[in-house]
């Protein structure tokens, strides 16, 4: 039950940050939600705070920095090497390269985030007694996790794409290639070594690095501040929502129904709010312009 409550905390926080176009970490939201609900269900002693800091908090701080440094170096070198080349020709070359580098990011995303989703579903099945405690994730769980991530990326990613592609810095194909290659490398190496990094934070760090690699002034560091706040608040906020959901759900069947209905209502509300200013393929490159001051009457 506490796993479901934790999931609800993570889903609601993710939807809220998505509404504002902020790329917050779904991994940290998931962990926060689980921590909050486990705290309520089994007291604070059930949480291994040492492990949380060493395996989650410190990598969360370091991973965007690592990705940023790698992307900055890669972008600088890519521009340096192609400075004598014709711009249009180089643009087309890196655009082709982006197909490969973006595919690598997708693969890396699957090695990292899809594993967490599969882990949570398998954990729920084990705690419900449907699977034995030593079971591996069933095939349908693997397929569902992959399909859900693919669908979410295809349908709902436009707000985050606008933030990372236009609001942070105006990404050119050279920078996109460098950022994607750096992100894929960092995530794949981390997954191989068993570090559960946030792909969101790695990709965001790489985009900032790629922006700074072209020209420092092109990066809107104010957006970085907004993201940093969202990242800092993600775990505690998801923990609070997950804890509240667990608190209500533990009261009985009525509590469980109330939690599910409230979560569905809030999720629908956030979706309806997003439809007021929809972002899709047609307007993803258009930034909302600030309102012009009305000239004073003569």
């Amino acid at each position, binding site marked *: 039950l506490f796993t479901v409550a934790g999931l609800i905390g993570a889903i609601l926080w993710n939807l809220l940050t998505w509404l504002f176009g902020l790329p917050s970490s779904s991994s940290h939201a998931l962990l926060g939600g689980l921590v909050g609900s486990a705290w309520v269900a089994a007291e604070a002693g059930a949480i291994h705070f040492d492990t949380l800091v060493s395996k989650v908090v410190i990598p969360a701080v370091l991973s965007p920095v*690592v990705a940023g440094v790698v992307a900055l170096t890669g972008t600088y070198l890519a521009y340096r090497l192609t400075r004598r080349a014709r711009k249009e020709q180089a643009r087309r070359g890196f655009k082709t390269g982006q197909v490969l580098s973006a595919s690598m990011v997708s693969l890396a995303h699957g090695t990292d985030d899809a594993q967490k989703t599969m882990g949570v579903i398998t954990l729920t099945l084990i705690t419900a007694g449907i699977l034995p405690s030593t079971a591996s994730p069933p095939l349908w769980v693997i397929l569902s996790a992959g399909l859900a991530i693919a669908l979410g990326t295809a349908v709902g990613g436009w707000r985050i794409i606008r933030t990372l592609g236009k609001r942070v810095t105006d990404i050119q194909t050279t920078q996109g290639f460098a950022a994607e290659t750096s992100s894929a490398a960092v995530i794949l190496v981390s997954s191989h*070594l068993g570090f559960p990094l946030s792909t969101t934070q790695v990709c965001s760090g790489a985009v900032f690095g790629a922006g700074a690699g072209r020209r420092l002034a092109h990066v809107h560091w104010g957006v970085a501040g907004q993201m940093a706040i969202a990242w800092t608040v993600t775990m505690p906020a998801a923990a609070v929502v997950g804890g509240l959901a667990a608190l209500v759900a533990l009261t009985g069947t009525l509590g469980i129904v109330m939690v599910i209905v409230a979560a569905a209502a809030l999720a629908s509300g956030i979706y309806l709010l997003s439809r007021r200013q929809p972002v899709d393929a047609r307007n993803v490159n258009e930034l909302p312009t600030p309102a012009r001051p009305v000239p004073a009457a003569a």
Partner: protein
Amino acid sequence: MTIDWTAFGQVFVVSFGSAVTVIVLFATGVALVAADTAATAGHGSRLARTGTPTAHQAVRSPAGSSSGCASRDPSRSSRGCC
């Protein structure tokens, strides 16, 4: 609390090395492919300035800067080659 700094260092070094290697190799490839066209365009541009368009120039860059410059059309000066 134990933090495995060696593993962090490993992540940084391996990902830095692999990503930068891939980017440098790909950018070098792009530079090599684009250099041929750049050299042709530069050659055409030089020929255009001397006012002696050639068949080679006409064939290699029918819509490029060289043909425009070769015509000495002042309206084409916005292309930055005349």
